[in-house]
Structure formats: structure tokens, C-alpha cells
């Protein structure tokens, strides 16, 4: 395979990198005078262009750089979601902080660079590529978390994320070196050839567990979740909105490819571990959120819980299970982007508010926002016929088909508990005494994004669920 073909396969990523560097250069030369709005818009354009490039490559599977990266329907599906979510994150940030610290040209560029890392993650088909892409992503994310460097909370969040991320990278690397040592190769297909049958080699399984723990950190699954609430709360809200959406999809896709691609025969070894992580995440996410008073922390626990639900599909380890994960993550991203758009609209004179009690009586002061948030919360809770319900339906169905009925039952119980805190917010919005109204200026784009998400979750998905399922099935099939 020629270098040209290799580069061609990674054209979207290369285009993004070149664009990002060009914009960075432009920004540096303009200095303080730089028109960050222009950079933002160009970054959105870059990401959307990347989506188009991804879509244009067709469904045929291809490998690049000696099989280090694999381009197939699975990676295409994931990349489309990642780039889309990143674009929306930029759009939301620009609107969310008219005067804030995020008005710097580096901000959208960092998101683009993180997207490159994520894009490589979902294509990674080799342990080295896996690690390199994760770090590409993470370095950008660490900076983003501490982006508001004048804020103590923001810098604390960035530091915590960085140190704990380093620890997880250590776990991951240690696991990867063990796997390489026992399998004799870093390439997923080569590992798969060795790791046959349950408990083929204890050393390989130990390495696998370390890798799983490292990746679980990235999807913020329990018990590797504890950074999540602190970082979500401390980071600037637009950054949190980005964190909650695209990186989760990338990590989850990487998780799926690493397990299904490198250890397909050792499914009996990793399935119980994934199931335990899923149960722990669902429990932590559902239960801890109940006592939260800060909406960002609540959404952090909510995302931990949702990762647990998605992992139920991965624990199934089947084609249907992976398809369920993809469907779940797509719906999750839409819900999350919509919810954070709503959170970003919670602005009063003197700054942004983050307390759940500030939403009190929203229905009387802003009926539209109350309705949108209501739909999104119902969807997050998984109440039919909203999108969240279908997501859960597919992962639980996959679990049941593989005989893990207990896991599905636990999942249903946990989603019942989770419903409590989502519906409590609905109750606060619709039935409690009205708090002062939020500012409405400059929230038009956020309102549009939020209502688009809500529209997708309630009436939209009823029509889109069939094509979404078809696409996810195709993507999942390319993994097996």
C-alpha cells in the first residue's frame, strides 16, 4: 500500500489538522485583534467538511498504515456523530459566552484538534494507534478543561483531569504492554488470533483488564468515574457540554473496537467485567444524582449512568449489542447537546446560574424553554415514546438475547431510580413557585439547538429510528 493511499484513507483527519494549524497561524498573527467569530465559523465549516469527506468515502472497509487504522462503516458512523457533536459544541460556545473567557481563537481550534484525536480513536486498530489517538484527544481536552485560566475552579478541574488522566493512561499502557508481551503483536487482528478461547492465557487477560480499566476512565464509567462530576462542574459550561458529548462517543466506539476487534474469542473473559462496570455505573449514576443540587453535577452523574446503560449493550458482545451501543450513543449525544444548550440558557443578571432550584417555576416565566427541557428530561429518563426509551430498548434487548436477563432487569430498575431525579426537575419546572426569569438576549442560537434536539427526541425519532437502526446495524456488522 502506497503512502498516498494511506493518506487518502485518513483524508478527513489530515484535512482537519491542516485546517486547524492554518487557523492557529492566522490567530497568532492577528493576536488580540483576531476575529474569533470567524475562526469559530471556519472551524464549524472544517468539521462539517470532514463529515462530508467521511460520508463520501463509501462503505468499503479499508486499512491504512499497515493496519494501524481501519476505515469501515463503524468508524464512519462514529466519526459523523463526533464531528457533528463537536460542531454543535463550537456553535453553542460562541453564543454562550458573549464576553467570557472563551472568546479566544484557540478554543475552537482545540476542539478541532480534539476531534482529530477522537476520529483516530474510532479508527484505531492497533494498540500503538489506540494510545496515540487517545493522547491526542486528551491533551486537547486537558487544556480545554482549564481554559478559563483565571478561574480557580476551572484550573482545578483541568489539573484533576490531567493527573487522573495520566493515571489512566498508565493503566492503559501497562495493560497494552502486557498484551503485547503475551500476544507478540500490537495489531488487533494479530491479538485476536492468539487470544482464543476463554482464559487462553492469564497474562493476556490481566493485560486486557488493565486496558479495560484505562478505557473505562475515558467513558467515565464507575468506579473510574470520580473525576467526572468535579471536572464537569469546574470546567466552563460550554466545555462541559463538549466533554459530555463527542469524547464519550469516541471512547465508547474505541472500547467496542478494542474488545470486539482484539478479543473476540475471549468474550467470556471480558463480558463479566464489562457487566460489572455497567452495573456500577448505572447504580452510581442513578443514585448519586438524586441528591445533587447543581445541574452540571447532575448531568455529570446522568452521563455516568448513561455510559452504564450503553455498556450493557457492549457487555452483550454481539452484533446487536454493538448496534445498540451505537444507537444509544447517537441518541445520548442529541439529548446531551440539547440539555446543555438549555443549561447554557440559564443566565441571569450577573452571570450564569447552575442550581436546579433556579429552574423553579420555569413554566410560568418561559414556557418554550420549559417545554423543551421537559421533553429532553423525559427522553433522558427513557420515557416512551421519546428517543431515550428506544436507546434503552435496544441495549436491553441485546442483553436479553445473550441470556443476560439479570443485567437487563438491573438496568430497568436503575432507570426507574434515575427517572426520579429527571422527573423531579420536571416537577420543579412545572409545579413550583416561579423564580426570577432568565435573561433572553443572545440565546437564539442556543434555543434553536435545544429545540432541534427536543424535536429530534420526541416526534423526530419516531420517523428516524428505522434509518438510524439500519445504519447502526451496518456499522456494527463491519466490526465482526
Amino acid at each position, binding site marked *: 500500500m502506497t503512502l498516498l493511499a494511506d493518506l487518502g484513507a485518513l483524508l478527513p483527519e489530515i484535512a482537519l489538522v491542516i485546517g486547524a494549524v492554518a487557523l492557529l497561524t492566522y490567530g497568532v498573527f492577528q493576536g488580540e485583534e483576531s476575529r474569533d467569530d470567524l475562526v469559530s465559523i471556519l472551524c464549524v465549516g472544517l468539521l462539517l467538511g470532514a463529515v462530508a469527506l467521511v460520508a463520501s468515502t463509501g462503505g468499503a472497509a479499508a486499512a491504512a498504515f499497515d493496519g494501524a487504522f481501519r476505515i469501515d462503516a463503524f468508524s464512519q458512523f462514529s466519526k459523523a456523530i463526533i464531528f457533528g457533536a463537536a460542531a454543535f459544541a463550537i456553535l453553542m460556545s460562541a453564543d454562550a459566552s458573549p464576553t467570557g473567557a472563551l472568546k479566544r481563537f484557540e478554543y475552537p481550534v482545540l476542539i478541532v484538534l480534539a476531534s482529530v484525536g477522537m476520529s483516530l480513536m474510532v479508527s484505531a486498530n492497533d494498540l500503538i494507534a489506540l494510545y496515540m489517538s487517545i493522547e491526542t484527544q486528551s491533551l486537547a481536552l486537558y487544556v480545554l478543561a482549564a481554559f478559563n485560566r483565571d478561574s480557580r475552579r476551572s484550573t482545578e478541574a483541568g489539573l484533576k483531569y490531567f*493527573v487522573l488522566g495520566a*493515571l489512566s493512561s498508565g493503566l492503559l499502557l501497562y495493560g497494552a504492554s502486557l498484551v503485547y508481551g503475551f500476544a507478540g503483536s500490537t495489531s488487533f487482528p494479530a491479538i485476536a488470533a492468539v487470544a482464543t478461547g*476463554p482464559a487462553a492465557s492469564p497474562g493476556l487477560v490481566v493485560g486486557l483488564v488493565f486496558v*479495560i480499566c484505562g478505557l473505562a476512565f475515558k467513558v467515565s464509567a464507575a*468506579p473510574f468515574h470520580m473525576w467526572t462530576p468535579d471536572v464537569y462542574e469546574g470546567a466552563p459550561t460550554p466545555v462541559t457540554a463538549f466533554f459530555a458529548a463527542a469524547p464519550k462517543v469516541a471512547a465508547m466506539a474505541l472500547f467496542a473496537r478494542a474488545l470486539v476487534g482484539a478479543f473476540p474469542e475471549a468474550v467470556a*473473559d471480558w463480558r*463479566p467485567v464489562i457487566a460489572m462496570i455497567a452495573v456500577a455505573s448505572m447504580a452510581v449514576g442513578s*443514585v*448519586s444524582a438524586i441528591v445533587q443540587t447543581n445541574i452540571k453535577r447532575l448531568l455529570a452523574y446522568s452521563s455516568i449512568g448513561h455510559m452504564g446503560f450503553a455498556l450493557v449493550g457492549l457487555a452483550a458482545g454481539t452484533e446487536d449489542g454493538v448496534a445498540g451501543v451505537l444507537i444509544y450513543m447517537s441518541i445520548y449525544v442529541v439529548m446531551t447537546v440539547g440539555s446543555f444548550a438549555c443549561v447554557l440558557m440559564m443566565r441571569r443578571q450577573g452571570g450564569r446560574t447552575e442550581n436546579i432550584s433556579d429552574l423553579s417555576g420555569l413554566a410560568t416565566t418561559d414556557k418554550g424553554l420549559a417545554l423543551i427541557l421537559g421533553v429532553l428530561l423525559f427522553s433522558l429518563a427513557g420515557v416512551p415514546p421519546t428517543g431515550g426509551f428506544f436507546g434503552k430498548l435496544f441495549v436491553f434487548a441485546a442483553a436479553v438475547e445473550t441470556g443476560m436477563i439479570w443485567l437487563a432487569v438491573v438496568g430497568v430498575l436503575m432507570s426507574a431510580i434515575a427517572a426520579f431525579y429527571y422527573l423531579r426537575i420536571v416537577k420543579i419546572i412545572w409545579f413550583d413557585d416561579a423564580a426570577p426569569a432568565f435573561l433572553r438576549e443572545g440565546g437564539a442560537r442556543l434555543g434553536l439547538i435545544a429545540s432541534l434536539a427536543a424535536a429530534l427526541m420526541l416526534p423526530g425519532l419516531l420517523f428516524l429510528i428505522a434509518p438510524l437502526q439500519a445504519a447502526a446495524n451496518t456499522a456494527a456488522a463491519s466490526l465482526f
Partner: protein
Amino acid sequence: MEPLVVLLPLFGAMLSMPLSRVAGAKASEVLTSGLLGVAAIYSWALFFDVAIGGHDRTRVLFEWIGSGAFQVDWAVRLDTLSATMLVVINSVSFLVHVYSMGYMKEYGETPRFFAYLSLFTFAMLMLVTADNFVQLFFGWEGVGLASYLLIGFWYKKKSANDAAIKAFVVNRVGDFGFALGIFCIFYVFNTVQFDEVLNAVRTNAVATPFLAAEGAPVRQLTISVFGADWHALTIIGVLLFIGAMGKSAQFLLHTWLPDAMEGPTPVSALIHAATMVTAGVFLVCRTAEIYEAAPAAAAMVTLIGATTAFFAATVGLLQDDIKKIVAYSTCSQLGYMFFAAGVGAYGAAMFHLFTHAFFKALLFLGSGAVIIGMHHEQDTKKMGGVINLLPLTHIFMLIGTIAITGVGVPGVKLFGVPLGTAGFVSKDMVIESAFLAGADGRAFGMFAFFMGLGAAAMTAFYSWRLMFLTFYGPSRAPDHVVKHPHEVPSTMLAPLAPLALGALVAGMAFYPQFVGDKSVAFWNGALPGTGAAVEMVADAHGGDDGHATEDSHAAEAAHASGGLAAEASTSEASTSKASANAADEHGSEHGSEHGGHHVPTWVLWAPFAMMLLGSGAAFAHYSGRNPLKPGLLREGGMIYAFLKNKWYFDEIYDRLLVRPALAIGRFLWKAGDGRIIDGLGPDGVAASVAAGARRLVKAQTGYMYHYAFAMLIGVGIFMTYVLVRAGGGQ
């Protein structure tokens, strides 16, 4: 076009509230009343077309439920029975709408009130125009709902809410029986269509119960209930009658009706006098074929009806609240209608229903005028001398009183019609029918006759007592009321006039159709023992299609009934003959008026004599200067207390049913639900989840080394698990 007669009130009900927002309360009052006025005129037109003209028809609108053999349609069935009800309902409803414009003026919230009134009217019309039991049940529940809403119209008043709930709950008991009856009907007949069910009963067709192996002629059919075999039609008849008892406030299920007087007075007039409470009578008449084939069920109807007539009259004797007196009077008159139906005189029952609607609505609306005039005073003991304050109202009430007491001239017939007020004509007809049935050996016929006579005397007594206490003698009202009686608007008095006219002449005017010489053609098959028998004859004899003279009609009716009944059993023959004889008696023009071979002269004079007796007693006691002086029954006496406390029914029910139910409910609530289910279930789980949440969150310290430690613990656990598992596998 026919559906409009049912739907116009519905439009009114739906438009009333929105219209009031746009154009004010007055507009919605006028609109609902106007729509009702159109419906009333149209229903009179339909009455003359369908009942007098004989153009029966059923308009099926569309299918409601279709599930296997279970087919239910929305329909408008127009025959004499439903046309009669249409006239009663729409006319009285229209007058009550107009009256309410005046009555409700001071209370406010009129759009809601008029919406409810119109909704009630719609439901009642659905009930009477049903062509199947399920639509009838729909209307039945609809009127129950509207009644509940209207009794509790002043929802801020606790007594009104209590009364509304009581009415609803007591009706639930009846409705449960009714629903079971409908289930039984479907079980036996595999249909809920009136025509199919009643035809099957009439012709004694073979009926195969649902899923049963083999059928039997329906009159011999038995069904198994609680392990014993029962006569199917008797079971059905009794169950349907239990429904009727609830709706029509019959003995044992009557307790809600007096309490229902908590509602606004127009409501009492419309729902609790003229229309809804008569739904039970309508039901028995509609399903008359079943009762004809189930003598035991008919006997129960007679027994309960006669008991109610007597019982309610006794309680009415000592009531002081002007509306409660009229309420017990209503209860008593409903008893008359039921025992008339029970002895097979369905025409007489419907006739009394028809005339009663006029004079009872008149009395209620008149009472409402008195209440308004006396500054919302309802206690007759604090009235007296109202004749000077409200002379016009007095005249209307006097007309109502002579109508209900039954003033007339017995033994005189002009143009074949008895001479007297509406109540005289129809009530005497009912009492005579009971006597005839009793003489023919129909169960409880004689009992009903004597109870009816006793009730007639008491009716006269309490009606005149009400008049004396309210209108005559010295005033006992406070000075400011006497000096400044509240103005009674003309919208309240105008509707009384047509009712008064009806109370005077409706009996004479419609006597020939309902029970007289034209009844066969009038009912046209809607009721057995009248047209139905003739139809049977016509069918049997081919050419004889009912153009014979009235005499031969009656004779053939008797013959047909007898002949038909002979197929079934001899007891039925005698009952059918009784009703046929009644028709014969009143159908004969040439015989000496009251010297018929079945009704002795004393029987004809007896109700009149009882009326004189009761009126005389009331006059003797209440016409003096001090009408409140102790009379035969002294306060403190046992009988006085017994009657004053309404035979202690409320107390007995309270002890036997309400308190145990509350005790059980409280136990299940506090111990069962609160402690066990909530304690271990939702509350317990919720509490432990919340506690777990607090503990989990406590682990979220914010220190990085705690977080890192948690991660390493996780790694440790998973590693241990995998290695132990791998070791165990090897």
C-alpha cells in the same frame, strides 16, 4: 335530522364555557337556552310524528364497538316510549334553563352551570334514544356524572360535596347491578340490541348462552349463579331493576335523593324530579317484555315500588325544609310509577311519569321562587303568609298542589276522559291498575293498591301542609324579609306558566293516548300488553292489522296475551290478562263509566276519599293561627322521631356500611398501605436509595488521591475476579 334533537344540548354544553369567555355569561345562558328551546320544539314535532303519527324509526349513526359478536352502535331510536321521554326532557329542560337565568343570577358561575345542565340533557337524551343496552348505560352514567356535578355545583360548601359524593356512591351500587344485568343479557342473548333481546323474549326463541353447549327456549332458560340454577330472565330482571332502584331512588337506595337537594333548585326540578330519576321507570318499561316473562322480578318491582310510595310519603309528613318535602314527594311518586310497571300497567306508569314531570317541576320551581323571595330561606317553619309577598307564585304552587294531590271529579267522564288535574287522572289510573292486578292474583298487587291509597292520603296531607306553612297564616319570617321580599324575576315566573297548564290539563289531554282508547295505536308495540299484543295478533292472523274497533282491539289484546302466555305458564296468563283487562276497562266507551266488571265503584272513589282525608287533616291542623302547634304526633314521641329521622335509614347505613367501610379503609390505608406496602415498598426503597446516595456522594471528597485510590480499588476487584475465575476454570 333526528340526531339533532340529541346533539343540540351537547353543542350547548360544549360552547357555554368558551362563549362566556368571548361574549360574557349572558351570551352562553341565552345560547344554551336557545338551543334547548329548538330541541324542545323539535321533540314535540317528533312526538306528534312518531307517537301520534305512528312513524317509528331508528337512525343508526355509526358503529361504536365491534368485537366479535359484540356489536354496539350509536343510534337514535324513536318510538312512542322514547318520543314521550324526549318531550318531557327537552320541555322541562328548556323551562329550567330559562328559569335558571333568573335563579342563578346572584350565585355567579352561570356558564359552568348551564354547561352542566345542557350536558345532563344530552346524556339523558342519549339514554332514552338508545337502541341497545350499552348506549343506554352510557347515557345512564352520563346523567349520573352530570347529577354529581350539579349537586356539588357549590363545591365550596361541604354539605354539597358530601351530598354529591353520596349520590354518586349510592348510584354506584345500583349501576353495579345494572352492569351485571347487561353482562347477563349479552351472556344469554349474545346481543345487547333492544329489538333482538325483546323479540327473543316475546317469541320465546331458543337462546344459546355465550360459549354454552346448547340453548333452551329463553323463558325456560336457567343460568348458574353461585352454584345454583336460576331462571335467567328473573336474574336479568332483578339486576336491571337494581340499577333502576339506584337511579330512581327506590326504597333502600333512596337515601341520596333528599340530600341531593343541596344542589341549586333548578337542578332539583330538572334532574331530581322530572327526568333523571324517572330513568329507572323508563328502563323497566323499555325492557317490559323481560318483566312480563319473569313474574318474580316483576313482583319485586311491585313490592319495592309500593313500599317506596308509602315509606317516602310517611317521611314527607314531618319534613320542614321546603325542598325536602318535595323531594320525598318525588320519591313517593316514583314508587307509584314502579308498582304500576310492576303490575304490568306500563302505559299507566309512563302516563304518571309524563304528568308527574309537569306538576313536580312546577312545585320545585315554585319552591325555588319562594326560596329566592324569602332571602334564601328554605325552612317552612320560618315562613307563613308568603301569599301576600308572592301572590303569583302562590297561584302556581296551588295549581301544583291540587295536581299532585289529585283533585278531580271521580265518576265523571267527558268525551271518554276523566275530569281532573294531571295527578288525579294518572294516579288514579295507577292505583286502579294495582287493584285489578291484585284482584287477578298478580303478586303484591293488592299490597300495592293499599300502599298506594295510604300514600295518596299522606301526599295530600304533606302537600297541603307545605302550602299552609308557607303561604297562609301569620308570617313567621324576620321583619326585614317581610318588608322587603326579594324580587322574583320574570324569567323565573314565566316558565311556571306552561308547567301549570300541563299540571292542570296534561292528564286529560293525553289520557286517550297513554291509557285510553287510543293507547294501542299510540304505543304501537313499544310496550307489551298494549300494541305489542296487537302486533302479535296481527302477525298470527295475517290480515288483521289493527284497523278494528277499539273494543275488539282490547279484546284481542287480552286474547293474544292470554294465548301467548298459555305457552309459557298459567301465572303469566293471569298477569297478562290483568293488564289487558285494565286496558279493556278504560278502553270501553259504552260501558257504565265505573261500573266495570272488575273495578268496583269504591275502588274508583277510594283515592279521592283518601285525598279528602289527607287534605282535611292538614286543613284542620294547619289552617289555624298557630300551625306549629303539636298535633297527633308530638315531638319526642317514638313515631315522631322515627319519621323525623327518615326511618333511621341514614343512621342504619352509617352503622352497617359507612363506618365499617371507613374502618376497613383506614386500616388498609394506615396499616396495610402506609406501613406495609409504602414502608417496605416505595417509601422504604426510596429512603434507602436516598441514604445510599448520600453515602456515595460523601465518597466524592474532591481529593484526587481518593479518586485515584477508588480507581485502583476498581482495578484490584476486576483483576481478582478475572484471575479467580481463570484459576477456577483451569
